[in-house]
């Protein structure tokens, strides 16, 4: 396992990034946080595209400190960007050969085409590829540089759901077969959960957590705060308006009805659900005024104050945070794996 040491203090455009951490790197490490947390800036500093003020070292090699600066092309770091930056003046084969030649392994291009299921696309112009194909070419090209570290900056964010599902296996194979450590920037808990063994969480330019994904995802970081109010973020699709003026939203945990007017039918929205607007019942409640009763499973229980506790619920793919009193947690016997129902009293559109 290699260690990435960061001691960075970078200010520009009113945004400050302050990081002083040693990060063990192996497999996929997620860099996770909301938009504007500094994830991409941090990635650019690690890649060498920006000079932060501070120190960056990988293993025993100093990439940047007060005196040295190793330029990006000598770091052995391959970057996969959100939109695949394939060279439009070269065909697919040419793009791969560009990387292979500079890594001294020109003979491996054909094998790589096959490995990324790109056989037959070698002569195509990158501009004619689908989003998924283009991102696969970008992954293959990154691997051909024989990198010591691969940086991925939201590589799936520009793709629709089906294309994402198409790319996942290739990233997993990169992780499992190529044995190249990957730093993976995302704000999607689903991607973190699927790919990353460890995660570093960032908020407003500061590290808020570093550790195994299972622990961190459970506790604070699908959860978020707005105006000091704890809650969770849920991605949902707007289904439409009901006859009595409600908006119907669908997410992986079920359907939500809200009197708020949210989005145009068919659009995807991010919802903020306050932790105190989520109640928990062991059995499906009857005769309750609340409209939204969703089957859920307890993921983790964490103390949130002297008398209160946060219960993390898995609701489909989404996770909901509920704030209860510790007495209620004990009375209901909530612990990891408990099946229950989440009663969501209100939702709001998340601020980005």
């Amino acid at each position, binding site marked *: 396992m290699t260690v990435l040491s960061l001691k960075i203090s970078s200010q520009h455009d009113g945004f400050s990034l302050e990081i002083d951490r040693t990060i063990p790197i192996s497999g996929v490490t997620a860099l996770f946080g909301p938009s504007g947390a500094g994830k991409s800036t941090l990635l650019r500093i690690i890649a060498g595209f920006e000079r932060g003020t501070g120190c960056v070292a990988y293993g025993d090699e100093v990439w940047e400190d007060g005196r040295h600066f190793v330029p*990006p*092309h000598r770091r052995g770091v*391959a970057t996969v960007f959100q939109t695949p930056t394939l060279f439009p003046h070269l065909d697919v084969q040419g793009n791969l050969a560009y990387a292979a030649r*500079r890594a001294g392994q020109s003979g491996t291009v054909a094998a790589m085409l096959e490995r990324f299921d790109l056989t037959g696309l070698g002569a195509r112009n990158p501009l004619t590829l689908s989003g998924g194909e283009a991102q696969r070419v970008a992954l293959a090209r990154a691997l051909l540089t024989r990198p010591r570290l691969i940086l991925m900056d939201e590589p799936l964010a520009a793709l629709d759901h089906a294309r994402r599902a198409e790319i996942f296996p290739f990233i997993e194979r990169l992780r499992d077969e190529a044995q190249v450590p990957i730093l993976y920037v995302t704000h999607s808990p689903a991607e973190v959960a699927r790919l990353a063994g460890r995660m570093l969480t960032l908020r407003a330019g500061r590290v808020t957590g570093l550790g195994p994904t299972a622990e961190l995802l459970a506790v604070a970081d699908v959860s978020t705060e707005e105006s000091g109010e704890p809650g969770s973020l849920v991605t949902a699709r707007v289904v439409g308006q009901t006859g009595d003026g409600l908006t119907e939203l669908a997410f992986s945990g079920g359907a939500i009805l809200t009197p708020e007017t949210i989005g145009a039918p068919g659009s995807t929205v991010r919802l903020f659900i306050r932790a105190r607007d989520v109640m928990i019942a062991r059995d499906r409640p009857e005769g309750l005024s609340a409209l939204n009763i969703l089957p859920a499973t307890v993921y983790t229980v964490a103390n949130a104050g002297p008398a209160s506790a946060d219960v993390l619920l898995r609701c489909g793919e989404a996770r909901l945070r509920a704030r209860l009193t510790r007495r209620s947690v004990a009375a209901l016997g909530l612990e990891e794996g408990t099946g229950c129902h989440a009663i969501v009293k209100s939702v709001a559109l998340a601020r980005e």
Partner: protein
Amino acid sequence: MSADLAPLWLTLRLAALVTALLLVLATPLAWWLARSRSRIVPVVEAVTALPLVLPPTVLGFYLLLAFNPGAALGAAWLSLSGTTLTFSFAGLVLASLIYSLPFTVQPLQAAFTLLGRAPMETAASLGARPLDAFLTVALPLSLRGYLTAAVLTFAHTLGEFGVVLMVGGNIPGQTRVISIAIYEKVETLDYGGAHLLAGLLLALSFAILLALYLLNAKDRRGGGR
């Protein structure tokens, strides 16, 4: 007849040489202007654009002073080459480099700005050194800018008059470019000779511009990059 066309060949030679030199020399300047966050960028941009707004005679006047063997530049040239910069082909080339500089720098700067930073960063992350990345990625992706710069520079140098008159004079085979020759023929009431040269220049300029626009149209139709 062939003696009459000598100014045309001289002009073409001058324009071709100046275009070739400027495409190379202006590249680093345009690159720096497109990339640098330095506070002196606007100052350098303004200086670069000066030949656009200055009357050629003003530019020619200052160049004449600088090229004079009594001035530092003129003296240095004289001691190095044994000839004067004033009233020589070398002087014309040097003057034209300055006179046509904005016509090379501005299209290149626009092309480099349009390019953005992603292609060069991608190339670096694939192990390409900066010069390698420039030659194999930035240059091919900026070909359109280079083509525009070349055409504009060539055409602008072709029509140069005021600066030549100030620093070059009218020496056959040395500094008698086509615009000077036409002027002289009109002055001496040789309208036939003037017609020939003017007509050639008109046809040549039109042909160059037509070629450029045809290429543009083809690119648009072909959905090129």
